[in-house]
């Protein structure tokens, strides 16, 4: 396989592993590191990491698919992550998702052609008190309404929000 963990990554990874009583406990922090490098965790990355930690590939894949924070494909500049869990659901998340989907012309899991937006539905973001919530890259947008959402999309398009 062409993919290889860089020496740099391995050195960092060894340090992270040392923080835990068991090497495999470092799986999640290492996945986050890996994701930082390219914005997503590729299949080959999972393979390499599994070998590095002495874990079966399936275990790594299970963890990556369990958490919605891990992307398995390159995503758009803005990753729109709409919470669909109970509180947000009851506060209208479904409508927000549908609105985004029709405005952007993409379905859940897809990226717009211009590479600007990726749309995902995710599980509870831990901000139920201000439902409905959407996370864009690492930033939370809370108490959303249809109008706020439209304005936000506009701001994002024109680089008016989001430091990164």
């Amino acid at each position: 396989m062409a993919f290889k963990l860089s020496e740099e990554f391995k050195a960092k990874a060894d340090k992270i592993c040392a923080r835990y009583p068991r090497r495999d406990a470092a799986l999640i922090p290492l996945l986050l590191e890996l994701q930082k490098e390219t914005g997503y965790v590729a299949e080959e990355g999972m393979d390499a990491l599994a070998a590095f930690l002495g874990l079966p590939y399936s275990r790594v894949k299970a963890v990556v698919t369990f958490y919605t924070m891990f992307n398995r494909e390159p995503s758009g500049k803005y990753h729109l992550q709409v919470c669909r869990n109970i509180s947000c659901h009851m506060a209208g998340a479904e409508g927000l998702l549908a609105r985004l989907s029709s405005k952007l012309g993409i379905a859940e899991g897809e990226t717009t052609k211009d590479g600007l937006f990726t749309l995902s539905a995710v599980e509870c973001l831990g901000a139920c008190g201000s439902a409905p919530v959407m996370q864009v890259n690492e930033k939370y947008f809370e108490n959303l309404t249809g109008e706020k959402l439209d304005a936000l999309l506009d701001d994002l398009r024109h680089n008016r929000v989001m430091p990164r």
Partner: protein
Amino acid sequence: MPTITIDGKSIEVEKGTTLLAAAQKLGIYIPRYCYHPKLSISGNCRMCLVEVEKAPKLLTACSTEAAEGMVVRTTSDKVKAARRDVLEYLLINHPLDCPICDQAGECGLQDYYMDYSLARSRFSMADKVRREKRRPIGPNLVLDNERCILCTRCVRFCSEVTKTSELEVMNRGDHSYIDLKEGKALDNGYSLNIADICPVGAFTSRDFRFKQRVWFLKRTKTVCLGCATGCLVEAHHNENVIYRLVPDPNPETNTWLCDHGRLTYKALQAGDRLKKGVIKNGLIELEPALREAATRIDEARGAVAVMGSPWLSIEDNAALARLARDSVKTGDYCFDFNFEQGIKDGILINKDQAPNTAGVRPVKAAYGGISMGELAGRIASGKIKLLLTEARAAALLKDALKDSGTRVVVFAANRGEIPAGAYATLPYAAYFETPGTFINYQGLRRRTTPPVAAPEGVKPLWDVVNKLASYSGASLGLDSGDDALKGISF
């Protein structure tokens, strides 16, 4: 050693015993999906919830250890309601597949639904989560993700028994499903056990699927003769056809079965199953084949050798020994097999592929004979004009037989077993067609019980030997397999 009370009955159990195991000892059955006695405890299905006095909530019997003075109830209204609720949850997304599902009739969902629920679904068919169906996963299994209840037995089997860890639960919540690496096959040599332990119709056997509804099957306990481990099995059959083998779990030898052993029954149904004799390459009727073999043996008298076989039962080996000593009257017979034995892979598969190496020993002890090396030497030096043995055993002498000019007469159940150049082949009743005694690598004596009958006219090997002897004019007087065992102690 804590003493606990379950449904009014008290029992003292070893420390560490779970409530489920304690109840089992009392003959009280607690329903379970994820629990399996030979896998780690997972506690995910909640089907085993029981009421324990002073505990604020119901507890999972599979994962709760008995503690002194516990008072457990398994039939209270609370428990009954919990079982109904668990089943309702499990069935929310379950497809209405029973009529087309191969598990029907031995399905954990069907059985428990009848026993503990009988409630109407409050969820609409249209809202069910859809998943990939009928997906071949490796050479032996088909996976239907819609039917899966996520008990993780299959996952634990692959990580704990075969240690190959192919399977995992991917995603979460009602998006969860069982999967393995894309493009990989589930083929770890023990994969069909997964079809057994999957409590529902999610994993089914590619071999068995749609061959037979399980309620038509009859069950016969017998022995797997795929190698020297000699696992106990149950053959499931109907109208003289075997449809599958499943393990008959026992503390001595096996909980599981390997895929190779499990599929050995297919030799009976294979296209090359011998129902007639073979002379050179042509099929001929049984009687003339026997006569031909007897004539050749008579002709070669004085230069005939007989060899037993670790693939044959003690009865059949003993009959061959009698033939050599009392009918052919030769000293050139060999019952000398010394294959190394022991579990090869840490699970079940034996180093010795023959099932009865240990069982030939008492025959050798009773009849003596020459060693394998001596026999090979005599064949190679051209002293043996005719060798009579079993087909797979003949292969052991391949090198000696080459260019020796020895005529080889073998017993075989399938044409594929016949060694190249054999002069005559006589068919005999195979493993699942006749009773026989075997000794496994642990020295345990195992008798097979035939689930099916041999093809018409095809007889057990000892019987064929008996006939051969009588054609050559010396009766061995064998009326049964047991007759052949006389004088042999094991």
